[in-house]
């Protein structure tokens, strides 16, 4: 039970850390990383939620796992697109 709340707290704090990075930047790349950290925080929250039944001796929530998997792919796609845009932006002659 304690670890469940520990992971929940970590998720919340990851959100905070990510938001801090998103606000501060200053580089765009770091902002993109920050978005990923926020995403990781949300996924951690979801996975911790999926872990809840385990505490009661049942299997983990597979629907949430599937959602996180979908979320992960969406996140990596978005990151890849953002990085491609960033790459072009930086490579462009000023």
């Amino acid at each position, binding site marked *: 039970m304690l670890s469940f709340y520990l992971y929940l*707290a970590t998720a919340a704090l990851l959100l*905070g850390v990510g938001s801090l990075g998103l606000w501060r930047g200053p580089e765009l790349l770091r902002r993109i990383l920050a978005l990923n950290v926020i995403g990781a925080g949300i996924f951690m929250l979801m996975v911790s939620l999926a872990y809840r039944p385990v505490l009661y001796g049942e299997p*983990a929530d597979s629907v949430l796992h599937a959602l996180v998997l979908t979320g992960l792919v969406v996140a990596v796609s978005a990151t890849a697109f953002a990085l491609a845009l960033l790459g072009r932006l930086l490579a462009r002659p000023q």
Partner: protein
Amino acid sequence: MGLLLFDVVLCALLLTLAGAAMLSRQLVHAVTLFIAFGVMMALAWARLQAPDLALAEAAIGAGLTGALCFTALARYAGDAGYPKPKLWLPLVFVAAVSALLLYSVFQIPAQPTTELSERVAEHLAVSGVSHPVTAVLLNFRAWDTLLELLVLLLALLGARQVPSQLPLHAGWSLSVSWSRLLSPMLLLLSAYLLWRGAAAPGGAFQAGALLASGLVILRLNQQLAWLSWQNFAVRTLVLAGLIAFVMAGLASLLLPGQLVWLSWPVALAGGIILLVETFATLAIALTLALLVVGEPEQEPADA
């Protein structure tokens, strides 16, 4: 007790890595720390009994995102320095928000609502696969997965709109030979993951991501000259997952008694899912590989 200690250390490590990545002076440190963070996340997923996610995170989160970030990092070489950003104002604000969030997540009831899980377990038998995550992904919520494949494709399409040249270094002979050795293993491994996905953790995404890393390694070592969007076969494979998905959906709609989009007939469900997953794996692998390595040379095509 030992597990709790492990949890505490892991969480502390995760937060430290993330915080350091956000606050580090140099971007290269930030990226490195972020990759380490990804690896630790995979560990955390494994700890939280989400092996599917651990596999996916290890391949996608840590591996591919890291590669992408380093590619972008190379561009920052000539970039002028940035003024040191303010720390305290954002910190105070973010601390307040985090406190709020902390308070909120502690409001989450510890008692889970299990109705949905029960429903999944109930219908697992007729879903065509025995691994619940795969069943959710490719049967119960297949529409999400289809759209998600579309998101992945879009990332590639979007990235193709903004090509930027990175010089490909001539292959280092040792790495070339290693890559030749490594990639068949990766191929085998990913096929295994795919196959396993029907019954146990694993599946299209994990397999695709693994395969993609193999392709990327080979491509970076000057292999696989055919790996280009211009190649019709590659294009077909990139789109294969979606095409198979849509075709399967439409075909099953044509079957008698099937009146709803993306409902697989019970008898065929396993086969359809395997078919879709196989093509999806190939599509994911090629898409991710193309996203990382880009095109050999670009020519803007007009309509």
